[in-house]
C-alpha cells in the first residue's frame, strides 16, 4: 500500500520520535509513505485562531501539492489533520473562493489520521500477526485530546465523544486499556506557553483521572498532547524524571516496541517523564532506571 505522508512541523522537532516510529511501523506493515513534496506548516491553531485567510491558505497549499500524487494522505498530528480536513472541505465546496481552478481540485484522496488508519481491520490483523513482544499487563489510559475528533463536521469522526481506535490498537499489541473519564478532554496545548497555569490545571485533572483509573501510563496520537501532558504535570518534571509522573507514549512508539521486541535507550531518553514502566514490560529492567536521564 502507498500513501502520501504529511508529517507536520512537530514531527521534525519536539515529536521527532513520533515521526521515527510512524516510519518504522509503516515499513514493517508494508505501507510505503511518500512525503508531500515541499510541504509547509498547516498554520496549526495559531493561524486559524487569528487570521482566517492564512489559516486556510497554508493547508490548501499542501493539498494542492498532494493532488498530483492522488494518494490518500496519512497525517500523524491531530492538529495538522484537522487543518487539512478543514481546507479540503472548503476547497471541495467552493474552490474559486480560494483561487483554485475547479478543474484542478477534484481529488479522489482521503485525509486519514494515523489512529483511524491503524485501527482498520486489516492493519490491526497485520499488527497482531507481527507482534514480537506483547505489552502484557501494561494498564494504559488512551488519550485522544481534541483535534483528531472535533469538530466532527470537519473531521468526519464517526464517534467523537466515545472514540475507540486507540483502545483497539493498544489491545492488538496486548496492552490493557483502562476505562476512564478524560479521554477526549482538552489539555490546552495551544495556551501552554502563554498561560502555563491553565495548562497545569487541565493536565493535572487529566493525569489524576488516568491514575485514578489504574493506568500506569498514557498513550496519545497527538504531538501537542504528548509534549504538554508530560511537561505540565505537577511537580514539574526535572531532568531526572519524576517518580510520580505518568509517562505519555505515542501509540506508534508502543507499536514499534511491540513489533521489534525492544525499546531502545535512545528512545527512552526522549521522555520528560521516566518511561521505565514500558522498559519493565519489555523485560529490560536494567535500563529502566536511567529512562529519562
Amino acid at each position, binding site marked *: 500500500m502507498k500513501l502520501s505522508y504529511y508529517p507536520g512541523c512537530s514531527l521534525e522537532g519536539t515529536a521527532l520520535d513520533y515521526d521515527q516510529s510512524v516510519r518504522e511501523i509503516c515499513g514493517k506493515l508494508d505501507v510505503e509513505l511518500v512525503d508531500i513534496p515541499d510541504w*509547509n506548516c498547516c498554520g496549526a491553531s495559531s493561524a486559524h485562531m*487569528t487570521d482566517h485567510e492564512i489559516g486556510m*491558505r497554508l493547508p490548501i497549499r499542501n493539498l494542492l501539492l498532494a493532488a498530483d500524487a492522488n494518494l490518500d494522505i496519512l497525517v500523524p498530528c491531530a492538529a495538522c489533520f484537522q487543518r487539512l480536513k478543514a481546507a479540503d472541505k472548503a476547497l471541495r465546496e467552493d474552490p474559486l473562493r480560494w483561487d483554485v481552478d475547479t478543474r484542478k481540485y477534484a481529488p479522489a484522496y482521503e485525509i486519514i489520521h494515523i489512529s483511524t488508519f491503524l485501527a482498520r481491520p486489516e492493519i490491526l490483523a497485520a499488527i497482531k500477526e507481527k507482534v514480537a513482544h506483547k505489552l502484557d499487563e501494561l494498564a494504559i489510559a488512551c488519550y485522544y485530546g481534541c483535534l483528531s475528533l472535533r469538530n466532527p463536521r470537519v473531521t468526519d469522526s464517526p464517534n*467523537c465523544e466515545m472514540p475507540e481506535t486507540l483502545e483497539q490498537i493498544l489491545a492488538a499489541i496486548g496492552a490493557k486499556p483502562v476505562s476512564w473519564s478524560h479521554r477526549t478532554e482538552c489539555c490546552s496545548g495551544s495556551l501552554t506557553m502563554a498561560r502555563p497555569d491553565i495548562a497545569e490545571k*487541565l493536565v493535572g485533572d487529566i493525569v489524576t483521572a488516568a491514575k485514578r483509573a489504574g493506568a500506569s501510563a498514557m498513550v496519545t496520537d497527538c504531538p501537542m498532547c504528548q509534549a504538554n501532558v508530560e511537561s505540565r504535570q505537577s511537580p514539574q518534571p526535572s531532568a531526572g524524571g519524576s517518580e510520580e509522573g505518568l509517562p505519555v507514549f505515542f501509540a506508534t512508539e508502543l507499536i514499534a516496541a511491540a513489533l521489534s521486541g525492544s525499546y531502545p535507550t535512545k528512545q527512552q531518553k526522549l521522555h520528560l517523564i521516566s518511561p521505565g514502566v514500558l522498559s519493565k514490560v519489555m523485560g529490560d529492567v536494567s535500563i529502566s532506571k536511567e529512562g529519562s536521564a
Partner: protein
Amino acid sequence: MDKNCISPDERSEKFLSKLQTRDIDVQACYQCGRCSSGCPIGDFFDLNVMEVVRLAAYGQEERLLHSHAIWLCAACETCATRCPNEIEIAGLMDVLRELALRKGIKPAEPRIPLFHQSFLGSVGRWGKAYEIGMIANYKVKSGDLMGDMKLGLNMFLKGKLKLVPHSIENKTEIKDIFSGKGKEYDR
C-alpha cells in the same frame, strides 16, 4: 441604565453580517448551556460561552472584543461539537480574535496573541514552525524571559528543539499568503 443591560438596538450590523458570511448562525442559540458546561477552560473565562453567543446574537461586538474569553478559548471545539443547533461557536471565537487584532484593541490576555504572532512569524519566514526562533521571539515580546527556562533547556538537551530552522523551497508562495492573499478586495 445598568451597564450590563444589553440591547439589540445597539447592535453592530457589520459584525452580524460578517458572521453570516462565515455561516455562524448565532441567532439559532436557545441558551441550552451545553457549550458552557462542556468548556474545559470555562472556569477561567470572564464571559461564559453561552454569554459570548448571546452577546454575539445581539451584535455586542465591543464587549466581546475586550473580553478575556476570546483569548482564553483554546479552540478545542467541544462547544461547537455539542451545540444541538450546530452553531460554529469555535468559529465565532476565531472571528472575534481576528477582529480584535484588526481593530487594534488591546487584548485582555496580551501574552496569548503574542504567542500566536511569534508562531506565525516563524511560519511566514521559513514556511515551517521554527521552535527556538519562535520561543525566543515570544520571550522577548512578552517579557516572560525566565518562564519555562528549565523545561526549554531540558527539551533542547534531549534534541527536541533544533538550533537550525527547517525551511521549505518555495517561500514565495508562503510570502504571498502572509502578505494578504485573499484580502485584496476587503475594502
